Structures are given as C-alpha cells and as structure tokens.
C-alpha cells in the first residue's frame, strides 16, 4: 500500500506537466456526448418520442460523460511502446509488480480528469437542466459498484491489448480495431436496447464492451431490474476473473519472449 501511495504521488506530480493535453481530452469528453445527444434528440424529434424517452436519452449521454471519465484508460499505447523500446527492463527490477505503475498512472489520470469534468458538469447542467433529475440513492450504490467493476474490466482489457507489444509493433492497428468494436458494442454511440434488431444479441454477451460503459450507465439511471442487475454484476465478476487469468498468462509468455531479446 505504501508503495502504491508513493507511485501515486509521483504519477500525480508527473501529470501536472500535461495539463494542456488533459484539457483537450476533457474537451473531447464533453464534445463527443453532446454531439451524440444532439443526434439522438434529432432522432427523437423525427420519431415523435414521448417526454420520458427524451429524458432517458439526455440522462444517458450526460451520465456517460462521467462514467467515461471513470472507466477511461490510455495505457495500451504507452505500455506497447515501453515494451518495444525495452523500457520495462528497469521496472522489472523494482520491488513492486510492473502493473502497479499503470494502476497508479490510471488513478492519477482519473483524478485530473474528474477535476476537469467538473467544468463539463456545469456546462451540461446549464444546457440540459430541464431534463435532469436528482439521482436516487437506491441507484447510486449499485451504480458505483458496477462503474467500478467496469473500470477494472476496461483497465485489464487495455493492459492485455498493450501487452500485444511483446509480439507486434503495430499497436495502433490493434487499438483501432478495438475502438471499432467498442463503438458498436459498448453503448457509446447508442443505448444498447436500440441496437438489438441490427446486432445479434450474443455479440453483446461474448464481448466485455457493454460491461465497461452501457450497463453501468443504465444501472445508474435505474433502468435495470433487480434480476438484470444481479446477472450483470455476475457477468462483470466473471470477466474480471477471466481477464486477470489471461493477463497473468500473457504477461508470463510475453516476459519469456522479452527475456529472449534482452539476454
């Protein structure tokens, strides 16, 4: 725990140098949902949605801003590059597991992003206050748990993608294909319930993407029944375990390969 705290402090100070970049990321976190919200409001206009559907759409994309900040990761590229350049050697000698560096980096990234997204909160509430309601504590509690699990799943997923750096130098292509699937399946572009006619249901189950974003948002909005909630949390826990096992195996295999280069 002390080690993690020291790393956190280091990463946090490191981040204050990148304020400009984080500002642009945060701008992205606002602009992208606002654009999508506008698209969906145009759809709601065209199909003549009732008030409750419009409210759901607005709340969905406003809440998405915050869920996005909490589950966001960016280490895949850094990790892959660090492996390619041999920079992880130095870390392997240190008295903590290497993944801890990324955990610390990820947490401090989020602290900064949360600070910036308070600005987003003010703007979004000013724009859409008539659609927003005070969140219920009955949904906050399970919602927080589910968002946290989503963050862990996405973190592990990115870590595994980043470790592809042991085998390939083309992390950008892998990241892009990942982004394509994320766009279609996570619920970032549309609430998943609207996609069921087009995208087969099993795709949403066999890939973890919706458990990173769409599912947590719906839990926070109280749109998930008790059984669906327990099912969803169960699937999230299974994903955490599966991804952890995959991570261990890939890391071991990768290190063997990596050792081959260095020694």
């Amino acid at each position, binding site marked *: 725990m002390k080690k993690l705290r020291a790393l956190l402090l280091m990463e946090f100070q490191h981040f204050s140098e990148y304020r400009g970049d984080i500002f642009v990321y945060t701008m992205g976190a606002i*602009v992208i949902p606002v654009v999508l919200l506008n698209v969906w409001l145009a759809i709601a206009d065209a199909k003549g949605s009732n008030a409750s559907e419009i409210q759901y759409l607005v709340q969905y994309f406003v809440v998405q801003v915050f869920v996005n900040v909490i589950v966001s990761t960016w280490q895949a590229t850094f990790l892959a590059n660090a492996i390619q350049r041999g920079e992880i050697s130095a870390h392997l000698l240190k008295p903590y597991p290497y993944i801890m560096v990324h955990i610390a980096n990820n947490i401090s990234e989020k602290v900064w992003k949360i600070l910036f997204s308070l600005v987003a909160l003010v703007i979004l509430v000013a724009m859409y206050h008539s659609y927003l309601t005070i969140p219920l504590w009955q949904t906050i509690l399970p919602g927080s748990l589910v968002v946290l699990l989503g963050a862990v799943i996405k973190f592990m997923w990115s870590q595994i993608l980043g470790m592809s750096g042991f085998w390939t130098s083309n992390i950008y292509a892998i990241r892009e294909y990942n982004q394509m699937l994320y766009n279609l399946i996570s619920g970032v572009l549309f609430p998943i319930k609207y996609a069921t006619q087009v995208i087969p249901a099993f795709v949403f189950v066999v890939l973890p993407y919706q458990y990173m974003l769409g599912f947590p948002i719906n839990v926070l909005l109280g749109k998930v029944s008790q059984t669906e909630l327990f099912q969803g949390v169960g699937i999230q826990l299974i994903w955490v375990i599966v991804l952890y096992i995959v991570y261990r195996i890939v890391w071991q295999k990768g290190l063997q390969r990596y050792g081959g280069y260095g020694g």
Partner: protein
Amino acid sequence: MKRYLTLYYHFFLFSLLSRMEYRFDFVMSAIRSLGWVFVTIVTYTVLFTQTQTIAGWTKEEILVMFGIFMIIDESWNAIFSDNLVRLSDYVRLGELDTILLLPLSTQFFVSLRHVLIFTLPNILIGLGVTLYYLSQLSLSLPWWHYLIAIALVINGIMIMYSLMLLFVSLTFWVVQLRAFWDLYEILTYGAKYPVGFYRNPVHFFFLFIVPLGVAFTFPAEFLVKGLSWHIVGIALLVGSGLFVLSHKVFYYGLKRYNSASS
C-alpha cells in the same frame, strides 16, 4: 508557380519512395478504412431502425455525406497532416531555422513537404461510398452540379487545413503542443454528422465559430438536397477567408519566432 509544381512533384516522389519499403501499409490502411465504413453503416442502420429520416436526411443521403466526409478527411490527412503535426517539433528543436533559409515560401514547405502516401487508397474508398449511395438515390443532376460539389469538397479540405494551421501556429506562443491528434479527433467527430442535426448553440458553433458544417455538410447537402446559390457563395467565402486568416496568423507567429531566436 511552375517551380512550386516541380517541387511538389519531387516531394511526392520522395514520400512515395520512402514508403515503398512498407508496401504492406497500403493494404493495412485500406482494411482499417473499410472497417470504419462497416462500423458507420451498422451505426446508421441502428439509428434508422428508429425513424425514416433524421432532421430531413434519409439513410442513403447521410451515407453520401459520410462518403464525402471520408474524401475530405482522407485528402487532408494525405496532403497536410504529416506536415502540420511536425511544426511544433520544428520550432522546439530549432529546425525551423534551416527551413527559413530555403529560397521558397515557408508556409509551402511546412504544409506540403511530406505526403502520407499510404492513406491515398482511403480517398478512393470514400469516393466509392459516395458514388454507390448517390446511385441509390437516383438523382438526375446536371453535370455542372458535380463540378460545384467538387469545388465545395476542395473548399472543405482548405477549411480543415486552415483550422489546423491556426491551431499549430499556437506553437509560436506556447512552444510545446502535443494535443494535435486529439483535437483533430474531436473536430472530426462533430463534423461526421450533418450540421442540421444539431440544436443551438452546437449548431451555431459548427457553422460560425468552427465552420466544420460548411466544410463537411455543405458539399453533400448541395448534391442531395440543393443549396441556394448565395449559400454556396458564402461557403466559398468562408473557406477563402479562413485560409487568409490562418496564413496571416502563421506569418504573424513566425515573426515572433525570428525575434525569439536571434
């Protein structure tokens, strides 16, 4: 003029030769591009399960716009992106000194020196998407409408170029700029949908503050819906005005650079 054309021919040739070693990149880039076409078509199919038209656009009309979006975006990428992204490094590492000594326009050199050859097939994919969905619409347009649409596409490429030149010119004041691609992603994200989808203040923002609606929506809107002539005129004025503005700001910043290093 002829001198610059010859120069550009050599820039192009040099970029081509230096990339021939990585011929596989052409294939990879085209496959990725097709992947995004697939994602976009699925996304619009989802959106159009809800309704027949969105803000007056049918699915085919929007996909025409997506094709044109690809043409503009990928052309900008191929011609300018690999250059503008380097400006901050030129300034930070002092490489701009060498460029300033060259007997040619500095803006020409920093904007056009490198051509991103392997994204060129993506422009053709965009053209294919545009033509396919145009044929689905079975419009019968006089031939000169296509010429004006091409002019609006070029106008769009220049708007995109001018906006990004304005952004990278900031480097003369702040030196370190790394958010290039992130900003680009944010801008093109908003440009992907017809500007008519947006309500104010977002609508106003994409027409008058950062005129990406003019750049990316107008060419398609002109083809599939028709735009009045004075709007076409204003669009071309916005494009050239922005180009002149970015040119002025770039040289204004460059003056700062001179005084800082000497």
